[in-house]
């Protein structure tokens, strides 16, 4: 959606591609409040008779906008190129030309709804992977798997010119050298299982989206997510690093559109209760990111390491024995 009202350029039913502009608006630019009355040395109420511009006039930097009469009269000049948008209380407001903001589709799909003056809803068929944290905005590119297994870190030395324009799939973590190399080679995005907390400050200035799928810390990417990304290596995908935990819960994501004509998957049941046999992911330490299968649902509460007694599930995590995990700390993978 546009940040402020603007113009939507497509209609319901239109096909769109990721680079296509679907809406645009003008973002407010710089501005300057010129204290013209003070600069001229006159009472604020008298400024009106000394103005040399009117509301709506375009002005150029250095152009006289107010002046006293006479050859030696003082004058006030515009400090920037812009438009006179207001005057009053002895001041003149000049706003620079707004900057054009273009909203791109970001995914391949079809426009299914138009939000008047603000944006569109685009439908597509494919896989969506939601992460838990992200940085950067939206982009798209070809998926490229950089590790052999989800518990391996992404290394800078493995990033070469073949990574240009791609979305890199990593494993447990990445470091500053990886970010530098990726930016150098104009990678389109990075997906990683975990991210060390000390890397967080570096994410502010990153030039491409980064999506963390499991959590902050050294956490391997979960097996199903890694498998989904790796088997789609070579396919175009869209990636967004936007994250907003509260309210709208905007999660960082990767969308892999399926080829047209593909059979849509069955609709997942949102409220189906947890059952034995379901695949789940653990969302809290000490097993954050671990994926397994529910093997039992005890009817009684168990005491966990903190001393709390909680309801939970026995989960097979491919360890020697199933592990008890509180229900509140499980996500069902659908």
């Amino acid at each position, binding site marked *: 959606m546009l940040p402020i009202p603007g113009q939507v350029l497509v209609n319901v039913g239109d096909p769109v591609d990721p680079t296509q502009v679907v809406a645009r608006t003008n973002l407010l630019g710089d501005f300057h409040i010129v204290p013209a009355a003070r600069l001229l040395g006159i009472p604020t109420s008298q400024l009106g008779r000394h103005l040399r511009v009117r509301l709506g006039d375009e002005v150029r930097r250095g152009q006289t906008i107010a002046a006293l009469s006479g050859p030696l009269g003082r004058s006030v000049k515009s400090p920037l190129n812009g438009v006179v948008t207001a005057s009053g209380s002895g001041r003149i407001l000049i*706003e620079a030309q707004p900057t054009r903001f273009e909203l791109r589709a970001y995914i391949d799909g079809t426009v299914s709804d138009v939000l008047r003056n603000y944006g569109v809803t685009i439908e597509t068929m494919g896989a969506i992977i939601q992460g838990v944290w992200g940085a950067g905005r939206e982009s798209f590119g070809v998926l490229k798997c950089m590790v052999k297994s989800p518990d391996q870190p992404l290394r800078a030395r493995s990033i070469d010119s073949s990574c240009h324009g791609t979305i890199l799939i990593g494993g447990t973590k990445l470091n500053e050298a990886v970010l530098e190399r990726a930016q150098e080679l104009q990678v389109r995005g990075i997906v990683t299982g975990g991210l060390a907390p000390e890397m967080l400050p570096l994410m502010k200035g990153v030039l491409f989206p980064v999506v963390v799928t499991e959590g902050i810390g050294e956490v391997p990417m979960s097996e199903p997510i890694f498998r989904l990304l790796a088997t789609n290596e070579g396919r175009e995908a869209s990636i967004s690093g936007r994250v907003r935990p509260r309210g709208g*819960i905007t999660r960082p994501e990767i969308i892999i559109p399926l080829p047209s004509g593909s059979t849509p998957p069955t609709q997942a049941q949102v409220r189906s209760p947890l059952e034995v046999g379901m695949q789940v992911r653990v969302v809290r330490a000490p097993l954050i990111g671990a994926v397994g299968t529910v093997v039992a649902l005890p009817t009684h509460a168990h005491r966990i390491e903190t001393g709390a007694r909680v309801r939970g599930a026995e989960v097979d995590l491919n360890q020697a024995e199933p592990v008890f995990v509180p229900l509140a700390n499980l996500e069902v993978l659908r």
Partner: protein
Amino acid sequence: MAQEQRIGSILVADCGAVMTKAMLLDQVNGQYRFVAQGEALTTTRHPWSDVAAGIRHAIEQISAVTGRRFLDGSANLISPELSNRQGVDVFAATISASQPLQVVLGGLVQDLSIASAERAAAGTYSQIRAILDGGKRGTSSDKEHVRAIRDNAPDVVCIAGGTEGGADRPVLELVESTTLACSMMEPEVRPLVLYAGNSQLRRQVTEIVGEEAELRVADNVLPTLEGENLLNAQEELDALYVQQKMGELPGIDTVSNWSPAPITPTARAFGRLMQYLWHLGEPPDIVKGSKATPSSGILGVDVGAASTTVAAVFDGQLFLTVRGDLGVAFGGERLLQKQGTETITRWLPEPMDGNEARGFFINRAMHPTSIPQEPRELWLEQALTREAIRTTLQIARPGWRPGVAQPYSHLLPLFDTIVVSGGVLAHAPHPGQAALIVLDGLEPIGITTLVLDAHGLAPALGNVAAVKPLAAVEALDGGGFINLATVITPIGEARPGDTVLRVQVTYDDDSTFSVEVNYGDLEVLPLPPGQQAVLELHPRRGFDVGLGGPGKSGKRQVSGGLVGLIIDARGRPLALSSDPQQSQAQVQQWLWDVGG
């Protein structure tokens, strides 16, 4: 009156940022009782995008427990109750699930009008996006002010400043900057302007704002330097929250149709219950033995997932403060960045660096319903809860008017009863941990009863009190709240290890127990819930336990609690060692002392 007589069953719902609760009160043997509760995820977001769905999910759990049906074939609430016991007579709802009101504040002096405006905004769920300091004058300040409003695009700009008959030009310049900013924004996104400054400038303010923005006017929040007047401005901001934020929730119309009374912000209902408890005079059984008197107040603290509320009542007057951007699931990372890692880690019994803490808070925010599995994460959550209470209290206290309830200006006023609510407190693995969080967060003085709202009933009962006061009283009597502990805090100074208080406890069975408490100690004595005891307190000379002044001895009847009797002789203000290893040892010792 006829309508009130027909109220038998009452269903109340509270829609929080993360969880939605529904509670059923009904008459059992002629008395209102809390009968059943259901809890479900709040459903304001995809895939439901309908706040009513979460309420329905919670109601379904009550149906499963009680065997009664509350929703009709169209999934709407059945009301009033039918002869076959389907439905309920009355439904009421409280909500805190909305985004907080985005506010830009303007004032002239940081510690005066700006602070008062901040406290006015804190009367509802709000987030301060920027502060316009009118004390800084000049073109560059104008530009900063205009940019702050334009870039933050708040819901409301609240301008205070100028006592009555005081400053005028600086206040009007703030209004001019605000109006200029509004003129630069698209009409649909312009903020509303709330003027709560020098009332003699209202006509000029109205002229300046003109047609550029919607203007509302409230009483001057600081009419004189000696006293604030926040109520009107708080009411205006609260009304804006209800109208602009709660009113925008998807599905809110459905919920409104179910309820004969307006839907209330959760914090307001919580505060109403505290006020109601104060006015009860003779409180229900659960707090018997520590009656609110004109010389002390009642305090309520609710630490939720996304917000923290402090409600203090003195002489029947409510002082409500809400941090709409700080709870145990959301806001931790921001608190860490703003106040520094040490603010949080000082409460931990083991070392932890800032990066690990930051990573924890980020992960927590993405999984707000999750619970700590490792002690390390539990301590971190409990540390955040302490700081949420402390930072909210910091905003609240300067606005209180406790009168004689505050014998020491630098310490908390006297409170007979402190009601605490929120998941981290209610679900602490050991009740001693909950008590310690409250003692560290609030630092109460004198003799206080800590009461735990174990089921999150407080806002619901505050709402019920407005509809059917008798139901609220009887529900409290019936065990809605649980006594956590009675706390005795002697005030004074001594050397660590000096005896500062002698206590003799006489139990119901006339057995006695005596103890001498040393300065620096945290002592816990057994007194289970449901039992009473008489305490004979003999403070050391110069020490005040709230029995009439320093050195005054006396007797007091007290009630038992989950933790029992706590004598907190650690000193006020509480001092933690600046050495991390020593403070960790201190915190660990305190946890052992309370049995946690």
